[in-house]
């Protein structure tokens, strides 16, 4: 790896000094399939002498076998890693590549041009300071170019290099270059970049990558490498107010209590007055502790450990901020969400949301619109499919400390995680907090749930009966309620059909509506157990995610899932309401068990097999479960 520095041979110590003070530039390359992204990166690696002789030999062999350039070296093969991709001849994931020059180290995210892989591009852009947008000079601006530029701008990248590639295939034409640049500038005006640097180039032959070369005397601007080496990436974060994300509380012994974390903006010095959020408590920085000794100052990007002068309560996920300029704390937001999973995002469903070092539960409130990323048009939507981008409101189960994404990536960017599969299903950018979230606070009341329960001689609880239509949920719930009333317990029965006559009259049977139906019932049940009641909920509630969300609303032990287990054949045979017949004839759509799924509970507290248990016996089993669990007080 012959780094082009005479110092290596003559004075290695001096060389190391120079390289020790290099800065770091992270950038992404994006563009359509076949625009030459992989070739460009391969070329950059090659030109910066990052390719070893053995790798070159392997590359030459691979080029003959798998290459798309005939006898010539196919630089794209240097970066197309996974076997599956090689076979298809395309890149399918984000790959990170490294090279360095005298002045900088570079980390390149190679992101794919396939339409269905928007999520990978967003992933690559999330950590990049700059984007290289490739355009095939023969084709000009494509739908993909617009999409990728929009995503790049959405993710907060303000500097773009417009790499007008394959210029050799249009005779190194200045006219083509100018036309494409004008087209791009007209489009980019809508999405806002601070800086667009257009460079005509041939990644395959090397024109304007390292040197100008003889083919385009008309181009006087910087060549690509020169631009990448010199573009200003001074982090504006350093001049912003101090913000520090606490990751881990360090307590090796009774005398030391430090808060390990990373500075996400601003600077900090011992003696600085700070505020801990969301609690709002104030203190002062005592020490900036590192293994290399205490620091007199630390800046954005550094991972350190802070100690404070007072014994204030600080835990993981808290934000330590400048005392007089703290970020906002809120629990309802408008956010832009990029959906990254095959299972659509639904209104009303709740997900885990990780932001900074905190994980909370976020429920998706109305989706305001989704964005057609090709035209930037706003479209009405009730769900977001894979690779959709939408703007919606989010309600959190607890307040978080945040800043708008445009101001601070680390306090404004979040991921959404599916509670059941644990997959990362979406990424989002917080825009602003909703007014109402600041004004509605929980009223602390003197008489609480426990007090109300004691008055009624019981422990409030939700009995959630789930099962197919016709399984016998309502029948069993009815018997249970009668028996509890006979024991002098205070109950209320929420029945699916009855609730749909009033509270949920506006809802139909689509997947979204079913989710919302259950969300409302869960919230009503929560209020009722707060009133000290034993609540019986008799709902088909077919999706695990919603039942789990309902469970998450209340405390441990306040939710008992009762699976009324009947085979579909048996339920259909009974067909008390004649609904299966309608569903089979197509008169009734989205009917659970027929054309809409029922996801059976995996670990219900109680399972009633209706083939073996009559309603009365089933009710007795539920009552004895309550009695054994101490829900019924003294009988």
């Amino acid at each position, binding site marked *: 790896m012959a780094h082009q520095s005479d110092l290596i041979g003559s004075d290695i110590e001096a060389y190391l000094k120079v390289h020790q003070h290099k800065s770091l530039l992270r950038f992404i390359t994006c563009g359509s399939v076949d625009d030459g992204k992989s070739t460009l990166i391969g070329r950059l690696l090659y030109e910066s002498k990052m390719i*070893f002789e053995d790798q070159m030999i392997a590359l030459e062999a691979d080029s003959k076998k798998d290459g798309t350039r005939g006898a010539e070296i196919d630089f794209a093969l240097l970066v197309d890693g*996974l076997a599956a991709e090689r076979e298809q001849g395309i890149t399918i994931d984000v790959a990170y590549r490294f090279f360095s020059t005298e002045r900088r180290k570079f980390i390149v995210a190679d992101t794919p041009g396939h339409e269905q892989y928007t999520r990978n591009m967003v992933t690559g852009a999330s950590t990049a300071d700059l984007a290289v947008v490739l355009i095939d000079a023969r084709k000009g601006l494509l739908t993909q170019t617009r999409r990728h530029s929009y995503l790049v701008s959405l993710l907060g990248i303000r500097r773009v290099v417009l790499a007008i590639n394959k210029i050799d295939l249009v005779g190194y034409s200045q006219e083509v270059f100018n036309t494409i640049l004008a087209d791009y500038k007209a489009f980019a005006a809508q999405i806002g970049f601070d800086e667009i640097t257009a460079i005509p180039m041939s990644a395959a032959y090397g024109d304007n990558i390292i040197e100008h070369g003889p083919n385009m005397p008309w181009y006087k601007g910087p060549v690509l490498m020169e631009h990448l080496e010199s573009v200003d990436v*001074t982090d504006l974060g350093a001049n912003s107010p101090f913000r520090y994300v606490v990751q881990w509380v360090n307590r090796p012994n009774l005398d030391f209590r430090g808060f390990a974390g990373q500075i996400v903006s601003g600077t900090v010095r011992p003696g600085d007055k700070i505020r801990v959020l969301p609690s709002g408590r104030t203190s002062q920085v005592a020490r900036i502790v590192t293994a*290399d000794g205490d620091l007199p100052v630390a800046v954005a*990007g550094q*991972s350190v450990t802070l100690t404070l002068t007072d014994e204030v309560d600080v835990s993981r996920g808290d934000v330590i901020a400048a005392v007089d300029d703290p970020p906002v704390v809120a629990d309802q937001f408008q956010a832009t969400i990029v959906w990254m999973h095959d299972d659509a995002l639904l209104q009303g469903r709740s997900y885990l949301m990780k932001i900074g070092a905190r994980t909370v539960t976020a429920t998706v409130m109305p989706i305001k619109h989704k964005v057609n990323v090709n035209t930037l048009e706003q479209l009405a939507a009730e769900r977001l499919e894979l690779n959709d981008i939408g703007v919606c409101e989010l309600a959190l189960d607890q307040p978080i400390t945040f800043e708008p994404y445009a101001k601070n990536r680390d306090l404004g*960017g979040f991921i959404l995680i599916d509670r059941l599969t644990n997959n*990362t299903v979406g*990424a989002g950018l917080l825009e602003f907090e909703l007014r109402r979230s600041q004004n509605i606070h929980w009223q602390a009341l003197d008489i609480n749930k426990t007090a109300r329960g004691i008055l009624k001689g019981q422990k409030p609880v939700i009995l959630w009966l789930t099962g197919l239509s016709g399984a016998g949920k309502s029948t069993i719930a009815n018997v249970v309620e009668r028996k509890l009333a006979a024991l002098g317990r205070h109950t209320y029965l929420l029945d699916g059909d009855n609730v749909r006559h009033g509270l949920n009259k506006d809802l139909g049977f689509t997947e979204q509506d079913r989710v919302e139906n259950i969300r409302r019932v869960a919230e009503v049940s929560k209020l009722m157990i707060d009133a000290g009641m034993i609540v019986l909920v008799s709902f088909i509630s077919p999706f695990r995610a919603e039942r789990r969300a309902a469970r998450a609303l209340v405390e441990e032990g306040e939710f008992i899932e009762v699976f009324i287990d009947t085979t579909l054949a048996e339920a259909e045979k009974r067909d008390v309401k004649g609904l299966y017949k309608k569903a089979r004839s197509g008169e009734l759509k989205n009917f659970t068990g027929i054309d809409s799924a029922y996801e059976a509970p995996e670990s219900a507290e109680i399972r009633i097999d209706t083939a073996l248990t009559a309603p009365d016996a089933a009710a007795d089993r539920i009552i004895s479960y309550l009695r054994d669990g101490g829900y019924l007080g003294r009988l």
Partner: protein
Amino acid sequence: MKLRPAAATEAPGSMLTHLQRLEAESIQILREVVAECEKPVMLYSIGKDSAVMLHLAMKAFYPAPPPFPLLHVDTTWKFRAMYEFRDAMAKKLGMDLLIHINQEGVDQGIGPFTHGSQVHTDVMKTQGLKQALDKYGFDAAFGGARRDEEKSRAKERIFSFRSAQHRWDPKNQRPELWSLYNTRKHKGESIRVFPISNWTELDVWQYIHLESIPIVPLYFSAKRPVVERDGSLIMVDDDRMPLKPGEVPQMKMVRFRTLGCYPLTGAVESEADTLPAIIQEMLLTKTSERQGRVIDHDSAASMEKKKQEGYF
């Protein structure tokens, strides 16, 4: 640890250097795992990348010791100097060191000379690692792999999920945005975490130099007994190495660019006996570091196959 004032303290407000940014990123990753996982472990392979990772862990949790043990999956064929170094380091740092050897492999007499590199690596390393992870029930394991080492590594996440059978599915990786890592997993599943993913070989050497991190002496050139086999210089480290008729070990000035099982690790002839000299040689050299490892030559995309099966 050497006291090294950060550049930022010299000139407040100036940009962090690339090494400072890499160090801060790695520390953030180490802390996330400790904060969110139940039972993490650090895989310690004794090489230079492990040395850097361990050094970063000492920094991340200072003044507390790293709140996890070290695990060495021992193939029993490492260089003797590596074993000495390993034991000395664990003692010096006061860390728990777990050593796991695949006993079934030992009982079957598996070794690189008798079974070849593929079988040996699979049984003693890949299977041994899985056994150890299952035995102790670790749910997160730090590894010192870097993305610049090999093409299939370039696409791996920093947090890489493994099924309960330790398999890696390259088509089904979780998107990884900003510095937000999703550590949630089901029972039995685990995560391999690579805190130095974004470091290059040069970064690692420069950092070792700058921070005076101790490394195994085998990286420095010295007179060692070697024989030449299939174009590789193999060191005769103990008497388990069968010499072919007429083969006589020669004393040569050699060093190692990577360390592994001694029969599978080729030496290079070199005079470099200081860190700057090693870095100089690395910068001027024309072959990549993995070339010294015999396992990568087995087949195209071999690393990817091994990883899907559970190799690090």
